[in-house]
């Protein structure tokens, strides 16, 4: 390849991974206050205030209404889309008493039981979830054969 190799190519490749958001600068900027809010739940006194009135606590943070709604709904996929990072969001689901496995399973469209069963059986295979582009090309090739 002759095009310049730089951060753009590096970042573009990340968009080729199915069902995955890499926590790049773009996401870090969008989610700045969302993540700082989540971080604040590391302090016991903040957790108490948060648990007493979630909405009121959220109002103290310059987050978008969309981010606030997604927090209240514990919609983790949405929160990742809005710039959340899983290690920051962990303070939120930990405060809810959820484990990583429970919280993570909510993002897969599987029930927590099915997700746990998949993990116990060896986890999700990387086959077919490595590259959106490769999947598309494979589909094209398959159609080609059928014709």
């Amino acid at each position: 390849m002759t095009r310049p190799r730089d951060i753009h190519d590096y970042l573009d490749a990340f968009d080729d991974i199915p069902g995955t958001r890499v926590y790049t600068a773009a996401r870090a900027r969008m989610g700045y206050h969302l993540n700082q809010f989540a971080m604040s739940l590391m302090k016991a006194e903040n957790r108490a205030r948060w648990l007493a009135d979630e909405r009121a606590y959220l109002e103290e943070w310059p987050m978008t209404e969309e981010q606030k709604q997604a927090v209240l709904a514990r919609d983790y996929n949405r929160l990742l889309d809005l710039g959340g990072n899983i290690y920051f969001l962990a303070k939120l689901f930990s405060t809810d008493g959820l484990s990583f496995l429970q919280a993570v399973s909510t993002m897969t469209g599987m029930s927590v039981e099915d997700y746990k069963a998949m993990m116990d059986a060896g986890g999700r295979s990387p086959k077919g979830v490595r590259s959106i582009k490769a999947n598309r090309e494979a589909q094209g090739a398959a159609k080609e054969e059928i014709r």
Partner: protein
Amino acid sequence: MARITAGIASSHVPLLGVAADTGKDRDAYFGPIFEGYDWTRKWIARPENKPDVVILVYNDHASAFDMKIIPTFAIGCGERYRPADEGWGPRQVPDVEGHPDLAWHIAQSLILDEFDMTIINEMDVDHGLTVPLTMMYGAPDAWPAKVIPLAVNVVTYPPPSGNRCWALGEAIARAVQSFKGKDLKVHIWGTGGMSHQLQGTRAGLINAEWDNMFLDSMIGTTQALRSIPHIEYLRETGSEGIEMVMWLIMRGALGRETRALHRHYHVPCSNTAIGHIVLEPVDGTVPASPTLEGNNAAAQGAI
């Protein structure tokens, strides 16, 4: 004089800390994981293997550092560190004692070697650091080794490249060799990994084949792991598998050739593939410092 006598790699899944702290570490789920560490616990308790200091490479998971400040490489030069409150109260484990003499020596040496270190004198340490201590030592009243925390950013992209991590390990080895204080046995531990993805519809990804290739390549003289790009970790091992670049700091510090003393791999722990390996240097040679301040007569000669 100080010398690196061994390298240990281990996952640092927070649930392992919970299991140990609540006495579930020998139940049906956690038993097979902890059993894989029994060999190491016995080995490390023997006087000839016991490290005086552990350089513990880990990543902070939004505990000591928030989004206000994100150091790529931060080295702890403080006297002691408390376990962090990660959202459910701090773990009830001993404080971590530092080794400021060796830590400052390493920090200063690394900067002369043109690594752009961030020096930390006060911080709390999270599961990334305390879980490996638990896995290796169980639940003592005090940790049996001093610890130099080396925190690596693997959360906000880009993390350091594999090559940079390996080179940092080599520079750490040079620094340890040139320490002039007490005779110290030093371990270097690389933590995190192996394959796991904690987000999105692809969550739960595990790649045992790739993980075992990675374990294989930690052994011997190959430097193949050094040039794996970030995108390969992401595709093959899930979005959080990138933590494995931290193992390369450990590997780089062991020098030209390693031998494996013990190896353990288990799926799953929560969302993660547990990997653990104990290595010793066979030929601990590392390249000489390429820098002026670290290595050139002109830099020190009197005028």
